[in-house]
C-alpha cells in the first residue's frame, strides 16, 4: 500500500506484478470524473491520513491474500489536488486464473474506499466545494456536506 502526491503510473506498477506463474492480471483505476451527483466538477482534493491509511491498506491486502490464491497485489492512492482525468487510485492483482484476480481486485477497491482515512473535497465549476461523504452513507440518502465559497 502506497500513498503518493505524484502521478500514478499504471504501466510501471503493472510491471512489478509480472510473474511466470501468472495467467491473469486485473487492474482497477479510479479516475477523476468531470461530474458527480449532477454537479460539474473542476478538480478534487484528497486528504489522506497516511499513518493509518497505509496500515489499513496493508490489512486489506493481507485479507485479500487470505481469501484468494493470489501471486502479487499492489495498491496506490493519490493525495493532494487532482485534475479531471487523473488517476486517483490504482489496484493491480495477478494470479494463476482470472476468477480470483477479478474477485480480489474488486474486494480491495471496495474496502479501500470505505475503510481508509481518505477524504475528498470536490471543487465545482460553479465555484463552491464540498466534502464527499462515503459511499455507504450515500446509500442512506446522506451525501454532500457542501461548504460554500471555497
Amino acid at each position, binding site marked *: 500500500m502506497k500513498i503518493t502526491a505524484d502521478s500514478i503510473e499504471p504501466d510501471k506498477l503493472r510491471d512489478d506484478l509480472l510473474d511466470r506463474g501468472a495467467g491473469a492480471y486485473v487492474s482497477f483505476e*479510479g479516475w477523476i470524473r468531470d461530474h458527480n451527483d449532477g454537479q460539474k466538477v473542476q478538480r478534487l482534493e484528497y*486528504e489522506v*491520513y497516511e*499513518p*493509518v491509511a497505509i*496500515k*489499513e491498506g496493508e490489512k486489506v491486502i493481507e485479507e485479500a491474500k487470505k481469501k484468494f490464491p493470489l501471486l502479487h497485489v499492489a495498491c496506490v*492512492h493519490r493525495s493532494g489536488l487532482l485534475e479531471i482525468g487523473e488517476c*486517483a*487510485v490504482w489496484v493491480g492483482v495477478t494470479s494463476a486464473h482470472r476468477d480470483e484476480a477479478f474477485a480480489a481486485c474488486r474486494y480491495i*477497491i471496495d474496502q*479501500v*474506499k*470505505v*475503510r*481508509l*482515512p*481518505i*477524504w*475528498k*473535497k470536490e471543487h465545482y465549476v460553479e465555484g463552491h466545494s464540498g*466534502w*464527499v*461523504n*462515503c*459511499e*455507504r*452513507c450515500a446509500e442512506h440518502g*446522506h451525501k454532500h*456536506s457542501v*461548504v460554500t465559497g471555497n
Partner: protein
Amino acid sequence: MTKLIKVRYFAGFRESAGTDEEELSMDVSTAGDVFAQLQHRHGSSEPLGHCKVAINDEMADWDSSVKEGDTVLLFPPVAGG
C-alpha cells in the same frame, strides 16, 4: 474521571472545529464519549455511525477505552478512490 486527551480532526471535522488538533481535559471513558462531547462542543451533526475513530494511530471502536495521554483521531465519513 478527568483525563488529558489529545484530539485530532480531519477533513470536515477540522473545518467545523476550526483547528486540526487540541488538547483537552475530558471526563470520558470511551472513544464514543469523546465523540459525543466534541460533537456538542463543535455543533457537528454527523452521526457517529458514519464516522470512524483511531487511538494512537490504530483503528479503534467507539467503545474502546481512552486513557490519559491518548491521541484520539476523529474521522468523518471516508471517501477514498
